[in-house]
């Protein structure tokens, strides 16, 4: 399974809170719990890009995880 490019709109939508998904991967949920607040408090493009990097990296390194795979299907179809 490949991970969708960082340029995909869904990554930005997740960290800015524009879209909320029912996710399964626990590490991503805990991380996003912090990142969404971080972007809410500091909505600069630099911070948004930093948060996208973090969540992208998390999924990229867990592509074998069933829950991470399920999340990527939920987010990107």
């Amino acid at each position, binding site marked *: 399974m490949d991970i969708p490019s960082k340029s995909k709109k869904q990554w930005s939508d997740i960290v800015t809170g524009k879209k909320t998904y029912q996710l399964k991967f*626990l590490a991503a*949920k805990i991380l996003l*719990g912090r990142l969404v607040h971080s972007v809410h408090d500091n909505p600069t493009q630099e911070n948004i890009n930093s948060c996208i990097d973090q969540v992208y990296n*998390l999924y990229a390194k*867990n592509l074998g995880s069933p829950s991470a795979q399920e999340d990527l299907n939920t987010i990107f179809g």
Partner: protein
Amino acid sequence: MRQDIKSTEETAKLIEAGNILLLAGDEGALRKLPKGKWIGGTIPYFISNAQGGQVSREKVFVTDITGVVKSIEIIQRDANSLAKVYSEGPENGFSFVVIPALSKAHLAFALNAPNYKDFGVRPLIGWISGVHLDDLGKVTPKVFNGLTGEALEQEALVLQASLLEGKVAEVGIVNLFEQGGGDILTFPADGFSSKEVMVNGEKKNFAAYIVKNRLDTKLPLVADYYGALVNISFQGIDEAEGDVKFYAPVFTGIRYKHAKPVADYAAAFKACLDNQCNLSEDRIVFSCNCILNYLYSELEGKKTTPFVGPITFGEIAYQLLNQTLVYLEVHDM
């Protein structure tokens, strides 16, 4: 059965056979064990399939991971070097960490883990070791490195496990507590205690707020991390100082609510598993539950099938949790 309570003699036989073990037991029991491929933490409280919740200073709770693991490394980490715990995790495997309660490593991990480099990129599960409640303040919690026989009071031990080909690890939690319908609470600083709280945005003294509103401090504060409910348990209230202490740190920027009551933990636990979880007992490699759930929900003699394991002074599923059951599954890919 990968997880079970055993005598020290039975456990020693497994160690001498070369098995890879995650152990929990009273300090005296762990000190009787031979060197080998194991790490352990001190605690005399367990839940088993046969007897449910129980306390024993003589027995050891044994989690045998030999059947799923290709190789291991056991690494000692202090309060500073523990920051590598995510980034140095094995590529296809998991890291299992045990940290003595109230140690420098415990405090550092609790406060800083969410900001460690590469948070969550490798599965991390573990627990905070403790003591028999009669020994609080008299005996220090410890972790044991089975390879060296050394017992540590201030450092963490990390067992990095590489899985056999075709297997993948997943960390999960079962938290029966949900946010109640009350006020939104936020805190001005990260920490294990707070005098101030923002109640729906209005600054108040937290101890006075708890007393005035008669909050049951057996129920934790609950934060919603993108759908994952994370508890912060109350340790105590100092009304004179106006200070409230917690068993895990609160963090700025996180919104907390006081939990809804759980009337019957064992019944609610069964209902939760029946309704929410898609778990196979065969895949569960390790689990542990919180001493506060054990005490407040009177789990002695009660079962939490399919979960067994040590009863701990804190649970780790990527970060420190309170009043939560954590578990590790190993799936076949």
